[in-house]
């Protein structure tokens, strides 16, 4: 751009923000290059304009800035990323620069990383069942193509293993098309990133994966743009190239902390736990970049991983996430301690899109009711366990004792499956096997015809 002045010196440096005075023709959201006293070039984005003063959020941090020597150059455009199919199989940093030693993709078009909101009337309601091979998900919290479902976890729980297993096993029964993976790391440990890379390599899917890595020791402010860069690529692959894209984003809590850092530096009014009031809108601007749209065969399915500080589901990050996403998969430390994998707490877990993607014509006709019954019965198990812990198991009624048996079977066999990859039929049959431990009168959420067809089917087969 001609006429773009280079500003020598900055007025003030405050955390990740630098303030420049005497600017002209700067536009909101514009990208600026900031050159440190040592000649290092860093990128930032215009965050506030007040008359001729501009605040720039610098992605790579503000160390080595000085008020006299630092130069600022405005680019005249907002932050873009070049998108193309060449990106598949590549590894990029948190701002979209190659990390794998190869040159940047040559072809492709520049797209604004903020994207635009999908018009609600242009959406196609997601209905296709994704088989993950995991019973607790397929049977009771079914994942749908075009859905966003986070994994709520906390330190020490196997959320990475679960996410990797979903990525490895996810298929659409009866369809050939494979998922393309966009993997987004925000502030994760080197080991965790390596674990995912290893998993992708082992499953031979590496050429179908685009990785964006902002690791734990990378600049934290960079994290605020990493998911936007990645989702711009995902949107291109899904809606321009008709691919089914599975986006795994980890860890959203790190992202939110970076956002909080910027907000604090800017002096935004803090709300719960110091997070800014716009955290909900900001998260929505990421999570809502999911789904299917009219005129494209592709889809974006999101699996963000949210680690809950202190395992507190009411913490603002999981709380606001749950209000935006279409359900959640909650991991439970108690189940994990019992050696159950995946340790999915089915009662607080939920899939909001499940109702329209299961049952006759989608999975199996008994699926909705079996899921419902498993929920109801397992919720009852929790109550009975509470009572039993006080009055002792012996004092329980016969029916209640059967519930306890059901609960144990459900956890040890239905939930606990290790790396097994189960079909939906296997999952549902296992669900019936668990329900058979209960008297038939207790199964009020199942239809008579379904009970006749499935209940004690296994037992009948065994008797001569």
């Amino acid at each position: 751009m001609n006429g773009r002045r280079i500003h020598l010196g900055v007025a003030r440096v405050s955390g990740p923000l630098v303030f420049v005075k005497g600017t002209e023709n700067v536009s909101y959201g514009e990208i600026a290059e900031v050159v440190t006293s040592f000649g290092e070039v860093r990128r930032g984005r215009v965050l506030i304009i007040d008359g001729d003063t501009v605040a720039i959020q610098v992605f790579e941090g503000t160390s080595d800035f000085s008020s006299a020597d630092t130069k600022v150059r405005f680019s005249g455009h907002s932050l873009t990323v070049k998108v193309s199919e060449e990106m598949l199989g590549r590894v990029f940093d948190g701002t979209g620069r190659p990390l794998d030693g190869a040159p940047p993709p040559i072809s492709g078009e520049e797209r604004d990383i903020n994207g635009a909101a999908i018009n609600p009337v242009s959406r196609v309601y997601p209905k296709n069942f994704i088989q993950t091979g995991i019973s607790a998900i397929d049977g009771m919290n079914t994942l749908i193509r075009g859905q966003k479902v986070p994994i709520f976890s906390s330190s020490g729980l196997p959320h990475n293993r679960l996410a990797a297993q979903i990525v490895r096993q996810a298929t659409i029964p009866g369809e050939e098309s494979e998922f393309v993976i966009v993997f987004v790391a925000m502030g994760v440990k080197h080991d965790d990133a390596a674990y995912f890379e290893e998993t992708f390599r082992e499953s031979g899917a590496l050429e179908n994966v685009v990785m964006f890595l902002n690791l734990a020791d990378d600049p934290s402010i960079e994290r605020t743009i990493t998911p936007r860069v990645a989702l711009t690529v995902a949107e291109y692959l899904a809606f321009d190239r008709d691919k089914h894209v599975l986006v795994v984003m980890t860890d959203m809590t790190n992202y939110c902390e970076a956002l909080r850092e910027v907000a604090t530096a800017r002096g935004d009014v803090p709300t719960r736990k110091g997070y800014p009031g716009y955290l909900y809108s900001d998260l929505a601007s990421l999570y809502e970049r999911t789904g299917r749209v009219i005129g494209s065969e592709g889809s974006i399915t999101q699996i963000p991983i949210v680690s809950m500080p202190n395992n507190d589901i009411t913490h603002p990050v999981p709380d606001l996430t749950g209000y935006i996403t279409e359900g959640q998969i909650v991991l439970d430390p108690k189940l994990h301690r019992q050696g159950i994998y995946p340790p999915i707490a089915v009662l607080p877990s939920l899939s909001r899109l499940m109702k329209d993607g299961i049952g006759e014509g989608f999975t199996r006709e008994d699926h909705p009711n079996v899921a419902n019954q498993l929920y109801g019965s397992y919720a009852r198990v929790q109550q009975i366990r509470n009572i039993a812990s006080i009055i002792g198991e012996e004092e329980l009624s016969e029916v209640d004792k059967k519930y306890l048996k059901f609960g144990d079977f459900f956890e040890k066999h239905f939930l606990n499956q290790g790396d097994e990859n189960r079909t939906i039929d296997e999952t549902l049959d296992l669900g019936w096997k668990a329900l058979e431990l209960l008297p038939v009168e207790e199964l009020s959420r199942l239809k008579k015809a379904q009970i006749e067809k499935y209940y004690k089917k296994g037992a009948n087969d065994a008797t001569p």
Partner: protein
Amino acid sequence: MATKDRERSDVTTRKGLITGINAINGPVVKGSGMAEANVMELVYVSDERLAGEIINIDGDIATIQVYEDTTGLGPGVPIYRTGRPLSVELGPGLIGNVLDGIARPLNLIREKQGVFIGRGVQAETIDRSKKWTFAPQVKVGDAVVPGQVLGTIPETPILEHRIVVPQGVSGKISSIVPEGEYTVTEHVAEIETENGSETVTMLKEWPVRRTHPLQKRMKPSVPLITGQRVIDALFPLAKGGAAAIPGGFGAGKTVLQHQLASWSDADVIIYIGCGERGNEMTDVLNEFPKLKDPRSGRPLMERTILIANTSNMPVTARESSIYTGVTIGEYFRDMGYHVALMADSTSRWAEAVREIAGRLEEMPVEEGFPAYLPARLAEFYERAGYGEVGPERYGSITIIGAVSPPGGDFTEPVTQNTKRFIRTFWALDKRLAFARHFPAISWIDTYSEYIDEMAKWWKEEKKVDWRSLRQRMLSVLSRENELQKIVQIIGPDALPSDQRLILHVASLIKEGFLQQNAMDDIDRYSTPEKEFRMLDLIAKYEDRAEKLVQGGLPIYRIQEMKVNIKLLTMKQEVADDKLEELDAIEQEMNQEFDELEKSLVTSDEKKG
């Protein structure tokens, strides 16, 4: 009024009152040279004409909230004033439409821009070129008063659009067009008033932030029948009343709002998706054309208007979306219709208010919300009401706001302040949702302040004593709640028989009555008659069971009765038009009790 506004805007354009931006912070921009501007004035920012509204004036600097993304704007970018407040266009063509927070039809935006919503789209709410069949209802020389119907338009097969005499206008009809096809901008009538003549077109423009009061406010006295048993039978809402649905995520707020939008016996439904999920709006868009209105058998879309400002759309337009919705509601109310307005979720609206307040550097009070949050909530909920809208004609707006308390904590400011301005509070309980008890309305924390009025309605309209039956059911549920605390400690078997009977009857009420399956064709809607009969049956069951248990019958004999399963499944087995099947169940029940009674007598005789 409207003519004055138009004139003023012409003047401004002629003078070319253009000013420039001098500061930007997210959706909030500041413009200088605004000494003449008004607070709440609509402005257009930049040559892309992004809509904005003046929210503050300090000297000649105006603070403007822009209804679209501000990326790329900078100092010096022009701001165009209009001299008019932010308004919504009203007229035939609203029904069945999907609008964004500032009333732009989303289908029109899609035609212009494709899948994504770009910036600066100009899209008129009401189509200027479409012709509508207008049938006059008055003739030249007729004296007319405000709210009187001048003519009607068959907008959809179930909704007649009425053009009424504007508020504050009365006089004689000096001209009226014959029945025929007209566009919304053509003059259809002229009224000779004391202050000159007033021309009427089918198109109106109302400022969204100003309440359009009822001609005469009256006490809400008729229930909004929703077909949801826990609501209609236990915690009713009156037409013209206000209710809140608070609940953490996953508690089922949205499903309940969808059920209410589907089955409520209102004439017009306005559903505002305010800062919620995109796919949910798509779900409504897919389902409503398929679902049939239980009264007319016509697709629900023929009485519904959707306002979709999803969570990723501009936060400022989210703030205005509820005002856009309620203004449209007032317009239909003034035609003499009962309007039900659902806002999902008012917490997202409050957060938008908070976000803008934060950008203005206003002093936060609780949890970062500005001090005027309660006042704003009151303004909104008070736009609900029932009353006279014209001679011998009545209309109402019922407002149902979903509240999404952070962490499911009902003590937070939005829930607490909302409670002050509503009269029915449907508290959703996460524990019920976990056990897949839907609707997860807690019978302990929920309340309705419309009981007196509704009891009168049941007595007069249905000739039944609903109040005592309701009270009785609630007392069973509340005693059960107390007993459960003891059960947690000593187990159910240690309780005396009469208390175990209460647990048993409460479980019949919970599973057989309160739980309602939105997916089941019969279960998802119940008429008031069926609801009353069901509860009455459970009450009779309790009466007889109580007598037997007092007489020494072991409780397990009651728990094993064959009729129990019938009572549990009557909600989905007995259709609304086959209530005689309930008589059969009652008969069966009485027979079984007779036999139990006999066995009790014989065993007594044996003992004796």
